[in-house]
């Protein structure tokens, strides 16, 4: 697989949307290509930052509201 092909499929690879064979080909390329590996790591870390943005301390008012709600069920 060429660098262009890897970059074309990079996000689908990181999103685990590719079949096993294509994923394996990309992994094989990343093991030997420093440039693509750096790019893949960069996008992976950015994706992890995005996932972390989905966690935020729930305010006490919400926790109390949920507790009250569940008690009423």
């Amino acid at each position, binding site marked *: 697989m060429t660098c262009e092909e890897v970059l074309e499929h990079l996000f*689908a690879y990181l999103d685990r949307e590719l079949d096993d064979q294509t994923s394996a080909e990309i992994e094989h390329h990343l093991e030997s290509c420093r440039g693509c590996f*750096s790019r893949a790591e960069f996008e992976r870390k*950015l994706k992890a930052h995005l996932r972390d943005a989905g966690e935020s301390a729930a305010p006490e008012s919400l*926790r109390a509201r*949920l507790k009250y709600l*569940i008690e009423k069920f």
Partner: protein
Amino acid sequence: MDAGIRQFFAAEVERLADRLFGTALRLTRNRDDAEDLVAETVAKAWAKLPELRDLQCFDAWIQRILANTFVSEWRHRRASPEIAIEPGVEHDEEGEPFSLFEKLHQPFLLWWASPEESVIAKLLREDIERALDGLPDAFRIAVVLVDVQGHSYPEAAELLGVPVGTVRSRLARARGLLQRSLWQHARDAGFHDNHDHGKEARDQAADDV
């Protein structure tokens, strides 16, 4: 429902509250609306709990209910068409999808070892939130479903009621816009100053030769 199930439900909601609230906040961009969304999600989850066959899947299951609740209301309430984003804004000067990595990898910056590592390490949570919150609704929701919640493309497509290809293209455009926004922010935050300092040092080194 028996006391054991109620206890399980209460404990899971308590455990997942930060995750549910954080995701709701990214979707609604408003703390009060996020609280309402989580409360509505929990009420729906309780009503649907008998349908959940594997309690081990509670986390993914309630996240899906949250997404579904938000998307249903968003589609219903969207009275006016979303502001169209001019095609190409998410691309760079060469017409390629905008890439923060490529911007940081310009030859003049490579003198500075691994600029992309430095920038990614210094990215603050607020930077990410600002960039994410600044995306148009349809793009932001696609990113939240896939990157934040971890849904697959087909799952996101089903939640949104659009073809998988639409999810793919919204994600691609969203990522371009997101990375452009982070690049602009990195420059505003002084990335250029660092580069200029590096240039000064390089010029000095050249003079010394």
